């Protein structure tokens, strides 16, 4: 399969295959991304996060349908947890998006976290690039949804939608810490239920703590399953995007996330090189043994690894 040609010609199979190659850490994929990197930057990236079962997939489905009516192409990346024990995963978010399946202007991809923490999979970043190159106007990323520590989405998305539901009770306290920074737009889903107003108020109260800020995230009550207020939610997302552009914050965010991305790739490469090197020389194990009987400390061991790496590179 000629992946590059396919990708540029709108062949979904090519797009899908390239994402797999990335997930499988195939060198060919990196070469392609290098080559096509200049084509990225056209898609708007929207993160959808929130506690399990809040309606993230349903919200994504409805937003995507709204955008399709506006003739926008939509890519969706949905991340579910990989079992740390077996490496297997059940990827079930698509169920909520069944009737988008056959829409030619939609591409949905499920991913397992494959060991990554932080609510995304390691390949998510590159997968967004692929969908961007593939010509998607909007790209949604649904995070794992385990609640805490879903921080990675901020680095990837232009706008992060935090989906909440009534009756979270104490959970809201637990998520509170992360909420303030992560959410650019708050959606109180399942507003057909009692307590939606209260939840909205609770969120507003929390946002009050940050009163001085130039941007105050809006709180939108929606009923995703009935497609209720989804247009309002989209409007709030657009408003945020506009604010980011006009205030210059967009650039700052982009800059920051590129920085972390570069450092991440760098770290990844360093670790990989050392591991590769260690395959022949056993250098890591040797250092571990030395540290075990205290003839060396871990700090010095790490420095020595770095030295080792440099010596092979020169």
């Amino acid at each position, binding site marked *: 399969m000629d992946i590059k040609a396919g990708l540029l010609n709108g062949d979904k199979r090519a797009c899908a295959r390239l994402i797999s190659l990335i997930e499988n850490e195939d060198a060919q994929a990196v070469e392609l991304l290098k080559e096509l990197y200049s084509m990225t930057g056209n898609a708007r990236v929207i993160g959808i996060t929130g506690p399990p*079962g809040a309606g993230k997939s349903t919200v994504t489905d409805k937003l995507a349908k709204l955008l399709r009516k506006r003739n926008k192409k939509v890519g969706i990346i949905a991340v579910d947890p990989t079992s740390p024990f077996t490496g297997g995963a059940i990827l*079930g978010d698509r*169920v*909520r998006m069944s009737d988008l399946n056959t829409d030619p202007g939609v591409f949905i991809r499920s991913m397992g976290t494959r060991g990554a923490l932080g609510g995304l999979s390691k390949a998510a970043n590159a997968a967004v690039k692929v969908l961007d190159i593939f010509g998607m106007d909007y790209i949604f990323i649904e995070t794992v949804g385990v609640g805490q520590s879903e921080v990675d989405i901020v680095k990837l998305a232009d706008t992060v939608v935090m989906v909440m539901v009534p009756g979270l009770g104490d959970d809201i306290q637990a998520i509170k810490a992360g909420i303030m920074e992560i959410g650019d737009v708050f959606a109180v889903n399942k507003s057909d239920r009692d307590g939606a107003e209260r939840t909205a108020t609770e969120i507003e109260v929390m946002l009050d703590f940050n009163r001085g800020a130039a941007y105050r995230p809006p709180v939108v009550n929606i009923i995703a*399953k009935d497609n209720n207020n989804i247009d309002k939610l989209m409007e709030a997302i657009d408003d945020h995007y506009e604010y980011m552009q006009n205030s210059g914050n967009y650039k700052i965010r982009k800059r920051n996330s590129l920085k972390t991305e570069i450092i991440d790739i760098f770290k990844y490469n360093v670790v990989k090189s050392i591991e590769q090197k260690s395959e022949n020389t056993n250098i890591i194990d040797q250092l571990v043994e030395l540290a075990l009987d205290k003839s060396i400390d871990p700090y010095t061991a790490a420095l020595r690894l770095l030295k080792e790496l440099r010596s092979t590179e020169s």
Partner: protein
Amino acid sequence: MFDKEKIAQVKKATDNWNDTVIAKTIAKFPERKPEFKTSSDIEIKRVYTPADVEDMDYERDLSYPGEYPYTRGVQPTMYRGKSWTMRQYAGFATAEESNKRYKYLLEQGQTGLSVAFDLPTQIGYDSDHPLSEGEVGKVGVAIDSLKDMEVLFDGIPLDKVSTSMTINAPASVLLAMYIAVAEKQGVTPEKLSGTIQNDILKEYIARGTYIFPVEPSMRLITNIFEYCSKNVPKWNTISISGYHIREAGSSAAQEVAFTLADGIAYVEAAIKAGLDVDEFAPRLSFFFNAHNDLLEEVAKFRAARRLWAKIMKDRFKAKSTKSMMLRFHTQTGGSTLTAQQPDNNIVRVAIQTLAAVLGGTQSLHTNSKDEALALPTEDSVRIALRTQQIVENESGVTETIDPLAGSYYVENLTNNIENMASEYIRKIDELGGAARAIEKGYVQQEIQDSAYRYQMEIEKGERVIVGMNKFKVEEAAPKGLLRVDPIVGELQARKLADLRSTRDNAKVDAALEALKKAAQGEENLMPFILDAVRVYGTLGEICGVLREVFGEYQQTVIL
């Protein structure tokens, strides 16, 4: 009931026996397994004694057949008065073909009808809908309009037989058609007896033929309760079903728990809709499974009866004793039957029949030996029916009521299952009731965990299924299975085209328009559906209108 001192003595003696005789024996001859357990994960002791039922109060916990809390049965004389209804679930291909099968079954001594519909009918699509392709008449009879229903019951006097229809999401439409056919036979609605399954919650949980979201579905159901209490008083307006929950993989205790939790949701919905509990509750009926663990199953039926009686009396303050009686249909456990050595299934079904009868069922379907291969042939259905007749006439278990009462084990197990089920119901209440627990996937998750555990036990050989993972033989491919001719789809499509060109379409449109308006409002929909059915509006058209107004249910998938 028991003397405290005597019980203390028994306890001591039992301990003594375990410490001496048993300890010695086990040391030499270890038992087969380290632990013995029922399907509900209840540990089974070596022996049971009065100490295991020491708190039992006969009047309070068991009482007499026909008396609260109905542990021993809902009728005073049970099978000494009259046998259970033998009701084989059947239906396939066209109405003509199924009509023949029903007449055959009635000739063979079956006492009630039970209609199986094909999947398009159950999901509210006409036979010519694109999604019906390949499915028409495959696993039940295809009904598109009143025309088909007239043929289905042709020559069967609806005032004489009772008919059970396994229909849920479109239950009101099929009930309306049944009423309309009866009218044509000159039988008025108040003479009709039978049951519609009409239990949408378990469709979401375990059976999969849902159409509409929860709220409008609950409305359709309470509409039926209300309509029937006034117009079709002998009709069982719902069959709250644990059968499918069990077949999806639940344990016995989960079967009771989730079924009664659904029951609670229906009662609450009807009360909320303004009905008086004693007006509709006497027409609620239930549907349970009978699996192989004979004694656990008997205990399950008894526990279900007692728990429901308490719920109706204490929670819903029912006054009529009829509201407290849990009457139920039983079907033997299809998922216990194997594709390997299918004749063995006859034996399994016999055990399960015993369980249902010893548990006091009101009606029974026995599965056929070809269960895991295809829809049953006429021959295999006959054996299944004969199994019931043998238990009825030859086994002797029908001569006295609830003969296992007083067995220390069965009473203890009855208590255990009741307690486990109550605990689940408490948990479901906490989650906000059955509908909410289903939306969260809680109920499905519990069932799937059980199903997966069961499968793994089989694969590891910890659970023996005779002929499947032990005592295997080489077998030739089974012969003579029932096949449904794919031509049925075309036949039905042709009939539909014909109907659409001969009926008065203006009348149909008007009826559908009226239905739509009513659906958007708050009225009882039954009269509107009846009007549409009478002028030969099709099932798909009627459900289509309701789909438009109500939307469709989205399943919660939990794995």
